[in-house]
């Protein structure tokens, strides 16, 4: 290239020398600086800040939108979790109530059973007591009756020999004691 370029430029060297391409003239420097400063000032002060502002605003908007979406999603997730929690709670509550009812029912039955058996025991005891009382009454009246009957019978059998009050009473007493011992023996055996 230098060769061909040299040939080309050779024809012109009398007009403009090649070095002038590389060495800026004063006016060139001056006007270059002017145009660059003008461009620099307008770009730095006006064009770039404006575009930057628009760009920042856009970024902010997009980020805001994304944040809002994320927030909404978060809320939805929270609501879902809460709903599920409630459902879970409700299920647990229902189970608990059922369990309570079951145990309460069991308790009621047990109580009723206990009460019934106590009642039965009470009734049985009352009956027992009544029977005992009646038996004693019967024994007392029997003793009286049997005494007179036996005396009557014995006097009839024995006749006058037992007229004597003291002897008669002794005989009766002995008889009754025997009888008594007999009944207690049988009653003890029966018990």
């Amino acid at each position, binding site marked *: 290239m230098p060769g061909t370029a040299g040939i080309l430029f050779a024809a012109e060297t009398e007009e403009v020398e090649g070095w002038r391409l590389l060495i800026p003239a004063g006016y*060139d420097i001056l006007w270059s600086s002017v145009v660059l400063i003008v461009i620099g000032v307008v770009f730095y002060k006006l064009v770039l800040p404006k575009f930057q502002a628009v760009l920042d605003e856009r970024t902010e908007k997009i980020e805001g939108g994304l944040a809002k979406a994320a927030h909404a999603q978060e809320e939805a997730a929270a609501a879902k979790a809460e709903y599920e929690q409630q459902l879970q709670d409700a299920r647990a509550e229902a189970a608990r109530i059922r369990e309570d009812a079951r145990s309460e029912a069991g308790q009621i039955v047990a109580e009723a059973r206990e009460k019934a058996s106590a009642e039965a025991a009470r009734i049985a005891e009352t009956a027992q007591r009544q029977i005992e009382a009646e038996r004693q009454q019967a024994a007392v009246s029997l003793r009286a009756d049997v005494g007179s009957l036996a005396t009557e019978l014995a006097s009839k059998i024995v006749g006058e020999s037992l007229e004597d009050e003291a002897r008669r009473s002794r005989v009766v007493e002995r008889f009754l004691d025997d009888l008594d011992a007999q009944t207690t023996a049988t009653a003890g055996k029966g018990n």
Partner: protein
Amino acid sequence: MTRTSRHPTPRAFDLQETALSSLATILPLAAEGESGFHKPSIAEFFPPAIWFEGTIFEINRIQFVRFVAVAVLLTIMVIAARRARLVPRRGQNMAEMLLDFVRVNVAQDILGKEKAPKYVALLTTIFFAIFAFNITGVIPFLNIAGTSLIGLPVMLALWVYVMYIGAGVRAHGVGGFLKSSLFPPGVPWPLYVLLTPVEFLQVFVLRPVTLAIRLMANMVAGHLMLVLCFSATQFLLFEASGGLKPFGALTLAGGFAITLFEVFVAALQAYIFVVLTAVYLSQSVEDEH
């Protein structure tokens, strides 16, 4: 990163080679015809002054083209910024795509997410400015890149130079910055005898110089190729003898291709410039290991 100037090599070179070889066959004919074959030359980059000739305020065609580029760029960007809304329309989408490209694919990829925001404004401004000045090279009636005159690339490179040295000094202090850039860690110390001068040249001289020259040279080469193709077309179609006229179609097609290529180069050079800027910044602020 290669430090040599990055010409958009293979393809451009081929195109230029074919163009030049066809030119070689034409030149003698042109000389014979004495007609107006306009040879491309670097005189194109030093047009006569329009105002204030000879003073430091001299304004020529190229300065004027730069003013137009600035006006158009700022008009478009200010209108886009004014109309910028939360929900973008088509135009705003385009602008934002380019801004995003610089912010994400250049700043964040090279500097990392934490350090990038500090330099996004610088990189974006430079990218848009360079693209605007480059693209004037293929816009009808402007027809020359604002960056094809060395002053503008030099000022851009100087801006970057100040920024990356400033960033390094702010990050590590003067000593720390010098140490980290002149004595790269992890090297056996005798090698510093070789390495340190190279690194010094690299950081303080070659980086800004290559930034400026790469940009300027690409634009100059592109402009020369375009002039060559279109002036050859003009000559072949309208002034050359009958047998040569069909070659005009060839050079026209070449000019068409190079125009498209120059659009690509305009974007590519703007991209390379900001990528290298980001790399230099990142090397300056890089944490010491």
